[in-house]
C-alpha cells in the first residue's frame, strides 16, 4: 500500500505545485490538500478539502483519510495574503500548534515534513560565516516571520519528543527564487531601483523553486529524521546579485533605513520587515553538508544559477551585461581599428 500524504497550504503557489508533484510519485497513493481558500486552477490528482488548520476539524481529516505523512508548508512569510500581521501570526503559530496536536492524536502517522526557513538563524554582525544546523541564532529574531519560524520549530521539536515513532524532517530553506516565486525577496529584486544599505554588502544564498519542490518530495519519500539547511551551492553578494540583474542601486545610510523601509511598505512596493532589512544588511550563510551527506539531496541549481534563472524572467535592466559588453566591444573596436 502506498502513502497517503496530507499537504497544508495548497492554495498558495508552491504548496499547490508541490501537491501536484508528489501526487505523481509512484510510492504515493493519494494526496490530500487542505487550505482555508480553494486553490485556483487545476489540482490534478490532488483531493482538496477545505479546512482551517487552526480548527480541530483537521483531526478528523487526518483520521478520516488515513493520512500517514503530513507535509506542513503553510507557514507564510508575508502578511499580504492572510490579511495583516495578527492573522498571519495566528495562522503560522496557532495553525501549527493545532496541526501538531492533531498529528499527535493520529496513531497512523509515520512522517512529518515541515518547511521551515533559514530566517530562524536571524542576521546580525556577530553571526558566524556559515550556520550549521546545531547552532542557535546569535540574536533571537524578535518579530515577524522569523519569530514565527522560531516558534513553529519549537513546537515541532516538542512534537518530535512526544512522538518518537514519527520521522520528523525539518527543512530550513534559503530564500527561494525563480520565475514563478512571489516573496518579499523577489519583490525586492523586482524593484526598478534597488535600495541597499550604505556600506554593507550581504552574503546571500538562494534556492531555486524546482529544487525546493524536489527537496520536499525527496524528504516526503525518503523519511530521514532531522533538521537540514537547504540552499544552492555558493554565495552571492547583494551588490553582485544586483549587478547581475543590471539594475541601479540606491544606497541608503543605515540610520535612515528603517524609515525608508516603512515608506516603501506603505506604498506597497515591497515588503521591508525589520528582519528582512537585517538580512539585507548582514546577510547569512548556511552550511549544507548535512543536506548532502545525511538527507542525500543535491540541488540542481547553484545559488548563482538559481538567481540567473530568476533574473532571466524579469528582462534585462538598465545596465545589463549585454549593454556593458556592447560598450566594451565598441571601445576596444574603436581603439583597435584606429591602430590597424
Amino acid at each position, binding site marked *: 500500500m502506498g502513502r497517503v500524504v496530507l499537504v497544508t497550504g495548497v492554495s498558495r503557489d508552491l504548496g499547490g505545485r508541490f501537491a501536484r508533484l508528489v501526487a505523481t510519485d509512484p510510492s504515493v497513493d493519494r494526496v490530500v490538500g487542505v487550505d482555508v481558500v480553494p486553490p485556483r486552477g487545476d489540482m490534478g490528482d490532488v483531493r482538496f478539502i477545505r479546512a482551517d488548520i487552526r480548527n480541530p476539524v483537521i483531526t478528523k481529516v487526518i483520521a478520516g483519510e488515513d493520512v500517514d505523512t503530513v507535509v506542513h508548508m503553510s507557514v507564510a512569510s508575508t502578511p499580504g495574503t492572510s490579511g495583516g500581521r495578527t492573522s498571519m501570526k495566528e495562522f503560522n503559530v496557532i495553525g501549527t500548534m493545532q496541526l501538531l496536536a492533531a498529528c499527535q492524536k493520529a496513531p497512523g502517522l509515520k512522517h512529518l515534513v515541515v518547511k521551515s526557513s533559514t530566517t530562524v538563524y536571524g542576521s546580525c554582525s556577530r553571526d558566524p560565516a*556559515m550556520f*550549521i544546523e546545531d547552532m542557535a541564532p546569535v540574536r533571537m529574531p524578535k518579530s515577524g516571520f522569523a519569530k514565527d519560524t522560531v516558534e513553529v520549530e519549537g513546537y515541532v521539536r516538542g512534537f518530535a519528543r512526544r512522538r518518537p515513532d514519527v520521522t520528523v524532517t525539518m527543512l530550513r530553506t534559503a530564500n527561494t527564487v525563480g520565475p514563478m516565486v512571489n516573496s518579499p525577496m523577489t519583490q525586492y529584486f523586482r524593484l526598478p531601483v534597488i535600495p541597499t544599505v550604505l556600506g554593507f554588502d550581504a552574503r546571500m544564498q538562494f534556492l531555486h523553486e524546482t529544487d525546493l519542490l524536489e527537496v520536499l518530495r525527496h524528504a516526503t519519500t525518503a523519511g530521514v529524521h532531522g533538521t537540514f539547511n537547504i540552499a544552492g551551492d555558493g554565495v552571492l553578494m547583494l551588490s553582485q546579485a544586483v549587478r547581475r540583474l543590471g539594475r541601479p542601486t540606491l544606497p541608503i545610510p543605515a540610520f535612515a533605513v528603517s524609515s525608508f523601509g516603512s515608506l516603501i511598505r506603505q506604498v506597497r512596493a515591497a515588503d521591508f520587515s525589520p528582519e528582512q532589512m537585517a538580512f539585507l544588511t548582514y546577510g547569512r550563510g548556511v552550511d549544507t553538508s548535512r543536506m548532502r551527506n545525511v538527507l542525500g539531496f543535491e540541488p540542481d541549481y547553484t545559488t548563482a544559477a538559481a538567481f540567473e534563472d530568476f533574473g532571466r524572467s524579469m528582462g534585462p535592466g538598465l545596465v545589463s551585461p549585454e549593454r556593458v559588453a556592447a560598450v*566594451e566591444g565598441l571601445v576596444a573596436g574603436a581603439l583597435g581599428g584606429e591602430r590597424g
Partner: protein
Amino acid sequence: MADAEIIPLGTRGRPGRGSGSSNPSAAARNLVGGAARKEPSSIKPKPAPAEAPLADRPTSGTTATDRAPGAGIPIGDWLGAFSSAAKEVFGDSWEPRLAESLALLRRRLTGDYSVDEYGFDQEVTERFFLAAIRPIARKWFRVEVRGAENIPTEGGALVVSNHSGTVPMDGMMTAVSIHDHTGRHLRPLGADLVFKLPIVGEMARKGGATLACNDDAERMLSNGELVGVWPEGFKGIGKPYSERYKLQRFGRGGFVSAAMRTGVPIIPCSVVGAEEIYPLVGNIPSLARLLGVPYIPITPLFPLLGPLGLVPLPSKWLIEFGEPIRTDSYDEGAADDPMLVFNVTDQVRETIQQTLYTLLMKRRSVFS
C-alpha cells in the same frame, strides 16, 4: 567613425575650470602675467583686438580664451592621442593590457566574478586592495620580511601576530608581505566591531576577513586556509605609546584550541615598526564610550593637524615569521584541556615577545 557626434568637453571656451564661474582660476591668472593680474576683468571674453597685446607677450603662452572647444578636433586625433597615452601607461603591449582592463571593468560591472562563502573577493583583493597597499609597504614603511620560509606553501596554518599601531595597519602589511612571498592570501580574523561598522566591515569581508569566533576559525583552518589572528585585540592596538612592544594578554587562548582541533601549525609573527606609525599619547574614553568604540586616539599629529594627522609616520618595519609550533601531536581532547591550552598560548606569546626584543636590537633607529 566620421559621423560620430562630438560632445564638447571642458569649459566651452570660457576661462576657469569649467565650474561655470567666469572668473579665471588663480593658476590661469598666473599664466597671463603681471598686467592681467592687476586688472582681472581684462581677460573676460571680449572682442579680439583687445586681446592682441596679451598674445604678443612671450610669457603668456596660451591664455584661457585660446583654448578651443573639443568640436574642432577630429575624432581620429582624439583616438591617436588616446592610444599614445595608453602606450605611455601600459608600455608597448598596450592593446592586450587595455583589453584586459576593459574586461576587468566589465566583469565588475556585471557581477561576473565569484566570492567564497566568507565573502572573500579574490579579484578585488588582488587588483585593488593589495595593489594599493603594496607601495605603502615597500616605499613608505620599507617592510623587511624574515623567515617567510616558515609559512607553509599549502594547507591550513594559523599566523599569530602582535597587534599595535592604533589602526590595524599591521594586519594589512602582514597580508601583503605574505602574499608577495608565498602567493597565499592571509585570511584575517576580525573583531565584532569591524563587521558592525559600515564600509569597514564590507571591505574586510571582501579582503578575506571573517569574524574571530571558533566556528569560523576552525572552518577556515580545516579548509586549508592561512588564517591570521591578533589575540591582543583592542588591548594591543590601542595601548599607549609608553607601553610599546609590551605584549598584552592573549585573550582566552581560543586560537590555540582552534589550531589544536584542526591540527594545523601555529606560526608566530612579530611585527616591529607598527607601534610608531601613530604614537598614541592620549585617549578620550568618555567620547569613545559615547560612540561605542574602544578608544578615540590622540597622537602628536591627530587631531591637531586634522586630516594631515592621519598620515602615518614612516617608521621602518621588520616582520619576522618564527618557526611553526606544531599542534598535531597532541591527542584528542587536548583542545579542551585548559592547562595545556594556556601553556601553548604562553609559549606562542613568549616566542613573539622575545623575537620583538631581538628585532628591536637589530633596528638601528625608528625611521631607518
